[in-house]
């Protein structure tokens, strides 16, 4: 800077007592010619110094001062200008600053405003997101909780009033929507949408079920006329009604009605016109067994195929549903058949009295009842009807049997001289055998069958026993009574042993027989002993005791009487027929006859042994009496 240069020099010249000297010393000491600053200084001063004298320095000094002043004045003047500029500039800067501050202010304000906007924007954006989410949820919800157009259409059914296979998935969906909204309601009780959906669905389902029910009605009507293959739709239709039990019941009732009429028509046809070129069943009506049997066979077959058809219809239903309705429907289909069948059977029964035929009829009815029952159920009209007819036939059978027995027995006469069972006994037993044989050949072996068997036996045997006993009251000797009774009992016994379940009856017969055998044994033994005169001796011997003295001293037991009796007994031993009761020979059963004989002789021997023991007892004083030993007598009587 050129303006600074003199400033440096001037203060140096005023600062010391001898600044010039010092300066000169310094100049001398320093190699001034090498110093550019000094050279410059010299250049500056030299024009000013013209003469060198004593005053030179002072003049120089003055001149320099003057110059410095001038320069300073000039500097000041210049500085004034600068100052003025600076002043101006400062003013401008201040103004500018003011503007800037204003701007900053404004910017700040703007900035704040923007922040607010931003906040609002982001809030709005958030809300938008939430709304979008809701929108999606609602869309989802609607998609999930309403039916598609196609589904709605399917639920309306076809123009012909039937439903097609897409009906069922649609119904299922309506159902599941309903269930889901129900679920929703359960988790949040005030879910109005769910409530709405439920209401909607339930309306739709109601309508759909209605359509379905009508469709089934139509299908069934067609089925009943052709009875052909079952379309899948109808099986599905029934299965779809699983949640509408009442509708299902109605639908099945309609079905049963249609089938019932169909079966009835077929049954009348077979009865009056015959089928497949065959004769009508009616022509058999004079033959109750075949007529009834053929009708039952037809009915059995008919309900069999009805069952197959029904199971096809219900094939898509759950098993418990099938179980619940199957028998009821089949029972209802067959109910009408039962009525017709009953009338027909009752007609053939009138005037029928033949026991075996009636019983065979009972068996046929029982046979079919057990076959049919599992199909239509025990409570069904059909089974009830068959049971009733069975009971009716059985009643006719038993009353017929009782009547026949009664008729036979009232004709029973007094036993003949031969003491063999009279004709009536044989007739009743033959009748019994006949019915028991039929029973045996048809018996199912159950308790009922056994009870019936017992009843048959009782129907014949109880009155027979009474008649036999009444008849024997006409006889005059107990021996005749016993022989006759024994002979009758033998016949009864030999019939009873042919059949099972007769143990008790056999026991009774045998017990009765043994009573009469005892009578005969006792009578005959008594007869033998009395004909030989041993009876009084036996009685005396039994009643005797030693305090009475020897037995031979008692009248009618004296040695002579005893001797006579023993001779007479010997005579009997030689001719064992002597003194015997002839009726015993009329015991028809050889085994019984022999048993009676053997036991009679045992009794005779027993009685003889008592007498003998007294005769050989020395106390009784029968000296010299010849009496056979008990062993001898026993041998002789063998």
């Amino acid at each position: 800077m050129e303006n600074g240069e003199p400033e440096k020099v001037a203060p140096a010249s005023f600062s010391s007592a001898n600044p010039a000297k010092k300066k000169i010393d310094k100049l001398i000491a320093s190699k001034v010619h090498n110093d550019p600053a000094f050279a410059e200084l010299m250049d500056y001063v030299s024009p000013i110094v013209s003469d060198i004298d004593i005053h030179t320095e002072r003049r120089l000094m003055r001149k320099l001062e003057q110059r410095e002043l001038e320069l300073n004045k000039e500097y000041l003047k210049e500085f004034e200008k600068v100052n003025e500029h600076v002043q101006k500039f400062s003013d401008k800067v201040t103004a500018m600053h003011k503007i800037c501050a204003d701007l900053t202010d404004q910017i700040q304000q703007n900035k704040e405003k923007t922040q607010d906007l931003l906040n609002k924007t982001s809030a709005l954006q958030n809300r938008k997101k939430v709304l979008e989410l809701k929108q999606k949820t609602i869309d989802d919800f609607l998609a999930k909780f309403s039916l598609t157009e196609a589904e709605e259409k399917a639920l309306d059914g076809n123009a012909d009033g039937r439903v097609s296979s897409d009906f069922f998935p649609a119904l299922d969906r309506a159902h599941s929507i309903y269930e889901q909204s129900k679920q929703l309601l359960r988790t949040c009780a005030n879910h109005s949408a769910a409530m709405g959906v439920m209401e909607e669905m339930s309306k739709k389902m109601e309508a759909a079920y209605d359509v379905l029910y009508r469709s089934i009605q139509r299908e069934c009507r067609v089925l009943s006329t052709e009875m052909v293959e079952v379309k899948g739709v109808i099986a599905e239709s029934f299965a779809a009604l699983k949640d509408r039990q009442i509708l299902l019941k109605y639908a099945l009732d309609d079905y049963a009605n249609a089938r019932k009429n169909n079966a009835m028509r077929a049954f009348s046809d077979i009865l009056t016109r015959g089928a497949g070129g065959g004769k009508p069943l009616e022509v058999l009506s004079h033959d109750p067994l075949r007529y009834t049997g053929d009708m039952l066979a037809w009915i059995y077959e008919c309900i069999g195929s009805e069952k197959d058809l029904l199971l096809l219809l219900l094939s898509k239903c759950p098993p418990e549903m099938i179980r619940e309705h199957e028998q009821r429907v089949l029972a209802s289909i067959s109910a009408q058949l039962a009525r017709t069948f009953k009338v027909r059977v009752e007609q053939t029964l009138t005037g029928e009295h033949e026991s075996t035929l009636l019983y065979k009829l009972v068996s046929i009815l029982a046979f079919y009842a057990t076959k049919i029952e599992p199909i239509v159920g025990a409570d069904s009209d059909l089974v009830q009807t068959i049971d009733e007819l069975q009971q009716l036939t059985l009643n006719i059978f038993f009353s017929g049997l009782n009547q026949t027995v009664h008729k036979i027995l009232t004709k029973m006469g007094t036993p003949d001289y031969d003491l063999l069972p009279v004709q009536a006994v044989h007739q009743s037993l033959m009748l019994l055998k006949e019915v028991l044989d039929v029973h045996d050949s048809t018996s199912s072996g159950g308790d009922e069958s056994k009870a019936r068997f017992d009843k048959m036996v009782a129907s014949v045997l109880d009155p027979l026993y009474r008649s036999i006993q009444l008849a024997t009251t006409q006889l005059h000797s107990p021996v005749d009574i016993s022989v006759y009774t024994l002979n009758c009992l033998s016949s009864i016994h030999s019939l009873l042993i042919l059949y099972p379940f007769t143990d008790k009856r056999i026991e009774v017969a045998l017990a009765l027989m043994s009573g009469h055998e005892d009578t005969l044994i006792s009578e005959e033994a008594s007869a033998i002993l009395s004909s030989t005169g041993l009876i009084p001796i036996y009685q005396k011997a039994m009643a005797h005791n030693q305090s009475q003295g020897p037995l031979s001293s008692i009248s009618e037991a004296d040695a002579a009487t005893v001797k006579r009796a023993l001779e007479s007994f010997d005579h009997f031993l030689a001719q064992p027929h002597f003194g015997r009761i002839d009726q015993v020979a009329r015991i028809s059963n050889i085994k019984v006859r022999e048993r009676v004989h053997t036991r009679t002789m045992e009794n005779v021997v027993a009685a003889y042994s008592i007498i003998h023991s007294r005769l050989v007892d020395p106390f009784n004083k029968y000296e010299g009496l010849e009496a056979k030993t008990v062993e001898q007598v026993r041998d002789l009587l063998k």
Partner: protein
Amino acid sequence: MNREDGDDSFDYLFKVVLIGDMGVGKTCVVQRFRNGTFVDRQGTTIGVDFTMKSLIVDGKRVKLQIWDTGGQERFRTITQSYYRSANGIVLCYDITCKQSYESLERWIDDVSKFAAPNVVKVVVGTKADLESERIVQVEDGEQLQRRHGMLTFIETSAKENTNVDKTFYRLAETLKRQHDAGMSIESQIEGIRLNSGSTPVGGLWQKYESCCRY
């Protein structure tokens, strides 16, 4: 003939015969014992009816074969056949009917003629529920029992089920014990009664009157 069921197995088998005038209530007693029922109108018994029932005595099964005889005079001969093999005899009279009590003497006669000597006899006064119509006193029954050496005397009512089971039970118990003691008629050689050969036949008591109720 009534067929009765029941278990066939038994340890003892005894035959018991009920006798007494027509209408004294023998059948009712048997029915009460067998079935536990009382049927008012049984219908008179023709000949003999047969019933079985088992009892437990001293832990053993005792089967009773019960012969319910018809009290009508005309069956007297037929029913006698069954006395011979009887182990026990129940003689019945109706406590409201003097005649039925008095008849017992003749029934007892029959028993001694045809039944085994050691047959166990019980005398039963029936219809004990008809106390107001009683004619035969308890002492009369007891006296009869003692006079004929019978096991016991009991008054029963089949209608009100008094003493019926007890009667049969006592009889069964006695028969079983007698059998156990080896005194049964089967063990005796003279199981069969020998008689003079002139067995009374029907008609002997032809003028015999039936019970006053009939």
